[in-house]
């Protein structure tokens, strides 16, 4: 269950968050929705440590391996001499390795990022198009009906323009 309160600006949104915390709603159930990145901590004080750079690294390593295999391995499969170049010649293999490493690193980054964002997800969540016109949304995850009503109450009191829950979206 999710409750979403729309606020006109960051100040009021922060206000709302304060009130929520005041009513001791655990902070890690609260999150903010916005159409531009909000400076860290202005609304939600929670740092999301990213780990997907490790996927980038892994991608790079695997890419390098793949590139090396391709350049060196295939040359071994049917060894044909060309000019004075050895069958496995350092520079070409290096270049291919490099290119593949970069390719897989890039793929890894995007993949890892989406993975950590838990995107793509098309399951209906509490949302309001107005967010993309500058409104700030405060969404709270909760389990029970009364909690929900309580939270929406708080948000309403702290000046939310509109309250939405994922039920009504459904």
């Amino acid at each position, binding site marked *: 269950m999710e409750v979403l309160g729309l606020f006109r600006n960051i100040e009021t949104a922060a206000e709302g968050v304060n009130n929520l915390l005041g009513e001791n709603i655990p902070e890690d159930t609260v999150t903010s929705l916005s159409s531009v990145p909000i400076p860290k901590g202005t609304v939600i004080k929670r740092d999301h440590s990213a780990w997907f750079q490790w996927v980038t690294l892994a991608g790079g390593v695997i890419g390098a391996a793949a590139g090396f295999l391709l350049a060196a391995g295939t040359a071994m499969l*049917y*060894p*044909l*001499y*060309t*000019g*004075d*170049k050895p069958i496995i010649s350092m520079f070409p293999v290096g270049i291919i390795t490099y290119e593949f490493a970069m390719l897989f690193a890039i793929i890894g980054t995007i993949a890892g990022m989406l993975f950590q964002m838990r995107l793509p997800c098309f399951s209906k969540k509490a949302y309001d198009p107005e967010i993309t016109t500058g409104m700030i949304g405060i969404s709270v995850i909760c389990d029970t009906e009364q909690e929900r009503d309580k939270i929406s109450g708080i948000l309403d009191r702290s000046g939310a323009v509109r309250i939405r829950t994922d039920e009504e979206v459904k």
Partner: protein
Amino acid sequence: MSKSKSNYKWGMVIDLDRCTGCSACVVACQAENNVPVVGEERSAEGRMLHWLRIERYWDGEYPHVRARFIPVLCQQCDNAPCEPVCPVYASYQTPEGLNGQVYNRCVGTRYCANNCPWSVRVFNFHEPEWPKPLNDQLNPDVTVRSKGVMEKCTFCIQRINRGKMKAKEEGRLVRDDEIQPACAQTCPPGAIIFGNMADKGSFVFRLSRSSRRFRLLEDLGTEPVVIYLKGGGREGA
């Protein structure tokens, strides 16, 4: 198939003191290897397909002018610049030290042609034509190249293979001057000599040791196996 394993290392010596520039070799090559005639228009565009050409250089001024003839064909370099640049191994080094050119593999990037300092590689810019019944004269032992394919002198590989097969049947190595490419075979003054450089007793090897020896564009360090012998003039003795 390492570079050295084979008993053969085909090589050629061209004695410029004997060469008269008569162009018999040019036609012989064309006849043996199904080299198409491209016609007047294409010739004008510089798209002639001769694998072997006689280069004529003027030096000096009348009356002390000289004309020099140099038969230029694929130099079959040991460190051939044309080979490594081919993305599909269509051009590669055979165990017997030839620059192989595999027509069915060639995709026609023309990279090899750019990287051949002798410009001996020719490209089929269009489908070759033999108005009937002229096609009856084609040599069945040699592929007819289609459009978009690079080609060049092969030292008459079909003859080399035939000779090797024969030798193999008789359980021996190929004898000296048993194999003759079309150009060497026909050359009236005997300026072109072909043979096995790996055989230290062969005529071609002995000639290649001559004091008159030089190689075209030797300073590029591509190690051509076509060796020229200086000639012409009293100084050439």
